[in-house]
């Protein structure tokens, strides 16, 4: 028994990502075609050259046919994947494992979501027939409970906490303003963020990720084949996934200041990749900033900050674009919104651009580091799934 990972056995050789936003002009099929077409072009292949497909969508469609139809796939295995908000990451994870297993030479992960078609604010879970006793809270409310709990535990008063949270949103908006694919491309002052209309607890509208449509995709091949498709492949170093069992909700010891599932998946990913000091070794990280307190706590669960110190690191600019470890250089969920099936792949897309030196100069990360991390979670404090992926532009 053991989690061994597939370090350097699989490489990403093509990626694509649509503009995220209110894509009322596009249906799910349009978004899929846009992302997939870019991806084929980067890899220099077409749809028939891909041996198997994994399609991530939380609730925009069901079955592999939702992907096979718009792409006109002929006799291809297509698997629809759903794993809460980590759906896009899960699609890539399955495609990578399929190639690593030797079952297929070329696999493709596509994630897409049409959130704006629902007509509702925020994301909505697919209704499963139930006894009616489940929580009906929004994700914003569940994550809002993190802020006072963290403040209480580490002695951060409400005013200081408000500043920290605004600083996180400010940074992500600053980065997103430099990304033509982002939904929101505007810098915002911390004052405006802190004063935005209340949604839940301490959180205002501008503490929350946007609601957007979008799609992203990746093609993976065996590492030794990678240079046949591109001269700058991105190698998979680690793929880790943990599905919590929900016990945190009923655990009197759980205090809403950390996400155990994230810490475990991070530990596993670092072991797979051979990373011992993530803050020093990673060039950048894309993390699941669904709400500002989430990103705060993730800095500690991912080992970027010591426990109780992330708020100070945030204020010190450690995670800014020019900081010691840039976090969400593409603008994050804050700027991109969160089309559930696409978000995990969108995170990899930023790694792809940065590690290949293709990010536009205004947000390009400079330095010698060759590793990038993505973190994608779904669910709530006490009851979540967590994905951590690590990729690098150098084999070995």
């Amino acid at each position: 028994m053991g989690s061994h990972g597939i370090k350097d056995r699989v490489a990403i050789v093509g990626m694509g990502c649509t503009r995220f936003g209110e894509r009322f002009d596009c249906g799910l099929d349009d978004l899929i075609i846009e992302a997939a077409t870019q991806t084929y072009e980067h890899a220099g292949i077409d749809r028939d050259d891909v041996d198997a497909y994994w399609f991530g969508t939380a609730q925009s469609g069901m079955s592999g046919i939702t992907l096979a139809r718009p792409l006109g796939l002929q006799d291809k295995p297509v698997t629809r994947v759903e794993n809460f908000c980590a759906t896009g990451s899960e699609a890539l994870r399955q495609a990578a494992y399929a190639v690593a297993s030797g079952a297929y030479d070329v696999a493709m992960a596509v994630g897409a979501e049409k959130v704006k078609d629902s007509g509702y604010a925020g994301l909505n879970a697919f209704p499963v027939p139930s006894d009616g006793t489940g929580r009906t809270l929004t994700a914003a409310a569940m994550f809002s409970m993190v802020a006072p709990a963290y403040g209480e535990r580490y002695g951060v008063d409400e005013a200081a906490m408000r500043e920290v949270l605004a600083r996180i949103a400010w940074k992500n908006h600053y980065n997103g303003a430099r990304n033509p694919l982002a939904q929101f491309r505007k810098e915002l002052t911390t004052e405006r963020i802190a004063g935005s209309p209340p949604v839940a607890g301490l959180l205002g509208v501008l503490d929350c990720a946007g609601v957007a449509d979008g799609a992203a995709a990746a093609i993976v091949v065996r590492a030794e084949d990678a240079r046949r498709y591109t001269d700058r492949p991105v190698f998979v170093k680690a793929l880790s996934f943990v599905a919590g069992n929900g016990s945190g909700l009923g655990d009197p010891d759980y205090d809403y200041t950390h996400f155990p599932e994230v810490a475990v998946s991070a530990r596993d990913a670092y072991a797979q990749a051979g990373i011992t000091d993530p803050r020093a070794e990673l060039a950048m990280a894309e993390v699941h900033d669904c709400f500002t307190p989430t990103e705060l706590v993730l800095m500690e669960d991912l080992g970027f900050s010591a426990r109780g110190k992330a708020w100070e690191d945030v204020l010190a600019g450690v995670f800014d674009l020019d900081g010691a470890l840039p976090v969400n250089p593409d603008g994050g969920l804050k700027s991109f919104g969160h089309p559930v099936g696409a978000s995990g792949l969108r995170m990899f897309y930023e790694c792809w651009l940065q590690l290949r030196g293709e990010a536009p100069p205004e947000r390009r990360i400079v330095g010698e580091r060759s590793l990038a991390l993505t973190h994608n979670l779904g669910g709530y404090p006490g009851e979540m799934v967590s994905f951590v992926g690590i990729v690098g532009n150098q084999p070995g």
Partner: protein
Amino acid sequence: MTAAPGRPRAGLGPADWRNLDSAAVRGIVSAAGYIPFRRLARADIRATFGAGGGAGTRSVASYDQDTTTLGVEAARLVRRGGSDGGGVPAVDALWFATANPAYLDKTNAAAIHAALRLDTATPAFDFGGALRSGIGALRAALDGRGATLVVSSDMRTGLPTSPDESAGGDGAAAILVGDDSDGPLLAEYLGAASATEEFIDRWRTPGALRSKAWEERFGETKYGPLGERAWREALAAAGIEAGDVESVVATGLHARATRALARMLGVDATRVVDDLATTVGNTGTAHAGLLLASALELATPGQVIALVGLADGVDVLIFRATDAVVRRVPARSVQSQIDEGAPVAYGTFLSWRQMVELEPPRRPEPARVSAAAAGRSEDWKFGFVGSLDEHGTPQLPPVPGARRVPMADAPATIVTFTVDRLAYSPSPPIVFAVVDFDGGGRFPVELTDVDAEKVAIGDRVEMTFRRLSTADGIHNYFWKARPIPGASEGE
């Protein structure tokens, strides 16, 4: 039609039953009223519309309550408030009466039965539709056998500015009727009489939001003679004189006829108890039970109490309080509940009663409950029964196969909380807390009967049975937490 001539329909006294069941003395084992938390100041009605209203307040059931959940709360109180704290008395049957049922066709008493976790073999029956069914069920239980839990409940309102709107109230009562062998009686049943006649006084067609009433004077001419007759026959059945009655509890939605009848009984006006009109309002089907419960809380041993109900006739039930009334400490007295109410804005009241429709959050409404899933989790959903882990710590919801533990009566403390301004709720915002129960167990749960700005970590809460939502006509019942009345905040 008139009654068949030549055979006076005298009331039945306990002596008649003693002949059948020699030693038993029948009466009231336990009684409790439940008054929901919110109060509407009647002056707010006039301030809004320039009409209607009046002095004082009326009780208001929350948006997440209906007559069934009000009934559950009353029944929980009556079971907690056993005669001398000597455990929960057995219940042989559950009867539920309301003029405002949450369901037709489906038995509303079944949900109460489930919330109380009564035995499967205990029957649960509805007495539906008529206002008179409340006092009628009580009389039937007193004249019957076995320990019968009689729950009556009502929510009264009318069109904005109407007398029904301001004079009405929401509330429930639970009276456990039984023999002295079922537990020490709070009051012995001395006898009863009823007078019935068909006449049009007050009516409502099924589905209508409001009742209608004929002009007052006509009904008054009917209730007077009917009341005098029932009173006379009830006194005879009890073997007492009017002067022996120390406490008259008179109630009817025909307020004028009720006042007039009370004056005709030959009982000093000081012995007619407060009908809670200025504080609670008239809770219709529930009011006889509510006032009786209140009277028993104030009674002295040996006191004779006459309950007089006017609704399509007149019913008179006569009791004598026992020594147990002074030993008994009510779980939560009617008076304490009156004192603990908090205001509700008139606009909120109107939206809660569907008189106006407010813009909902732009979130999907809840899906309907699955009958099969709800059926599988009856213990949890209706009874709030958790399970115990290997260390004996409660787990909520319960884990399949683990030993069960009832949690509905366990108090808890707020660990953390939030206010959700986006989530769908029939009355936003949702106030939501993580609570730790005394004796162990944690549960994230919605709060109710709470003002968002007053919640604090450390507040003490108790569980309360509520209707979360309704979809496809199916009511989704489950539990919420509410601040424990009287528990100081932030301790």
